[in-house]
C-alpha cells in the first residue's frame, strides 16, 4: 500500500535555491512532489509503507541540513564571495 508523508518548511528558513538543492540530492527511487503556499514549501513523499519512514527521514535530514546552511550563509555568504574573488584576483595578478 502506498503512503504519503509531507515535510513542511517555512520559506523564511528555506529559500527556493535550497529547496532545489534538496531535490537534487533526493534519490531517484523516491517518489516525491512539491507544493507551496504563501509561507511554506511542502515536499510530498509517496512510498510503500515499508519504505516511507526511511525516505521521510532521509529527506527530512536534507531539509534540516539546508536550513542550517542557510543560517550560516545568512551571516557569511558575502564573505565567501569576497574570499573567492580575492583568491582568483590574486591568481590573475600572479599569472
Amino acid at each position, binding site marked *: 500500500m502506498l503512503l504519503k508523508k509531507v515535510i513542511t518548511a517555512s520559506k523564511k528558513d528555506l529559500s527556493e535555491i535550497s529547496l532545489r538543492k534538496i531535490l*537534487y540530492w533526493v534519490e531517484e527511487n523516491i517518489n516525491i512532489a512539491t507544493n507551496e503556499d504563501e509561507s511554506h514549501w511542502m515536499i510530498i513523499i509517496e512510498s510503500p509503507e515499508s519504505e516511507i519512514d526511511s525516505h521521510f527521514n532521509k529527506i527530512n*535530514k536534507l531539509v534540516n541540513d539546508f536550513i*542550517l546552511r542557510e543560517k*550560516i550563509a545568512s551571516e*557569511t555568504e558575502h*564573505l*565567501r564571495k569576497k*574570499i573567492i574573488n580575492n583568491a582568483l584576483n590574486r591568481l590573475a595578478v*600572479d599569472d
Partner: protein
Amino acid sequence: MTNLAKLPFNFKRINKDYLISNLAGQHQFMKEEDFIKVIDSDFCELDPKILASLESKSFLTPENQLGLREKIISSRLATRIYDSLSPPSLFMVVPTLRCDHDCNYCQVSRVDMDAQGYDLDEEHIDNIIKHIRFLSREFVKIEFQGGEPLVNFLFIKKFVSKAKTALKDKKLNFVIATALGPITDEIIKWISSEKIHLSISIDGIESIHNSNRPSKLFNSFKNTTQIIRKIRDSYPDIQLSALTTVTKLSLTSPENVIKPYIDLGFKELFIRPLSPYGFAVDTWKKLGYTAEEFFIFYEKVLDIAIDNDLIEYSALLHLNRIFKRSASHVDLKSPAGVLFGAVCFDYSGNIFGSDESRMLYKTTESKELILGHISDSPKDICTNENLTTILKDTFIELNPGCCDCAYNQFCGADPIYHLSSQGDLIGDKSKSFFCQIEMKMFDLIFEKYYTNSNYFKKFNEWLVI
C-alpha cells in the same frame, strides 16, 4: 571578550558528530552539541580549547580582525588552486597496447599479443622527451603503461637511456606498470641497474587474482608471485609496489585479498575500486558493486592492514590531501588534474591529459579528449582549446553538488570520469559513483582518525613516512 563573528564554512554530519571545513582548507571535527553552539553563536558556551581552535583555524574571528582573516583565507585558497595548476610531474608513456593478460576490467587498454599497429615507434622518443622537458619542473616521474609495457621492452630501454641524458638536470624516476608476464632475468638485471620501480597488480589469492586477471598464456598468480619472490631474493634493491583492483568477487573475502601481500612481505598496498571506462552495462553488472558494498569491504581491509602493519595507500593519499594539502593525487584536484596532474603519451602518438582520457578516447574516439600529438610543438599543448574546455568547469567550489560539500577543499572534480559515466564534464553528483566513493572515503578517514585511538596513531605514523 571581543565580539566574535563567523567566517564561511561547510559542514558534514558523520554519524553523531560533525566535520566543518573552510576555504582555507582547515577542518574541525566536533560533537553535535558544540556544532549547534557555533550555529547559534553561543560562543561563550564552548570549551575554551575548542573556541581557540576554531579561531586559529579561521572559522571564527574577532570582529575587528575580519579584514585580516579574509585576506588569510583568500591567500590559502589561492595557494591551493595554484598548487593544482602547477606543472605536472607524472608522465605516462604507452609503449604498446599489446598485452598477455585478458583482465576482466581492462577492456579498452589492451589488444592481443599478435595485434599489429599498437606499438609506439622509437622515432617518437626524442619528441616525447622534448615535451617532458617543456612541461615539467624539477621532479619528473616517467611511468610506462600498457597494455603490457614490457612487451615493447626495447622501446623502454632506449627511452630510459635517452631520457637520462636529455633530462639529466631533472630529478628523474622511472616506473614500469607491469603484470610481469614477459619479464626475463636479463630484464630484471637491467631494471635493477637502472633503479627502476615496478608497479604490479595483485588482486588476491590465486582464485581471485586469476579470475580478475586471467591470461591465456600462463597462470598469472603463480607467475607474478614467483617473480616477486625471485626479485626479493636476488635483487632486493628493486622497489616493488602493488595495487589491487576490487571486483564483485573480491568483496566476498577481504582476508583473501590481503593475504598475498602479507605472505610476500609487502609493507603497503593500494586498494582501488573499479573504473567505469569502456564498460558495457552487462560487464558492470558482473563485476561492479555499489559504493556501500565497496565500503563494507574496504573497512575490513583497512582493519586487517592496520593489524598487520601494512600501509593502505588510498587512505594515505586522502590523509596527505587533508593534513598536508598535497596536490599530488590526480583524482583529488580542483581545478582538475587533467594535464596539470599527469600527461599521457599514447602508442598512437596522441597526447592526453590523463590515463583515463586515453581510455575514454579508445571507446568514443572523441577528438575533444586529445590535447595534441607527439609531433606538435610542446607549447601548443598548454594552449589547446580542448584543455580549456575540459578544465573550465572544474573549480569545485562552484560546481552544483560540490559547492556545499564539507570535503570540497580536499576532493577533486574528475571531469573525465563524469564525461565517461554521465556524458557531462561536471556530472550529477547525486548519482555519481565517484562522489559516493569519495564522500564515504572522507567520512571513514575523518571518523577513524578522530574517534579511534588505534587509527589515530597509525594514520599519524603513515603521515610522517
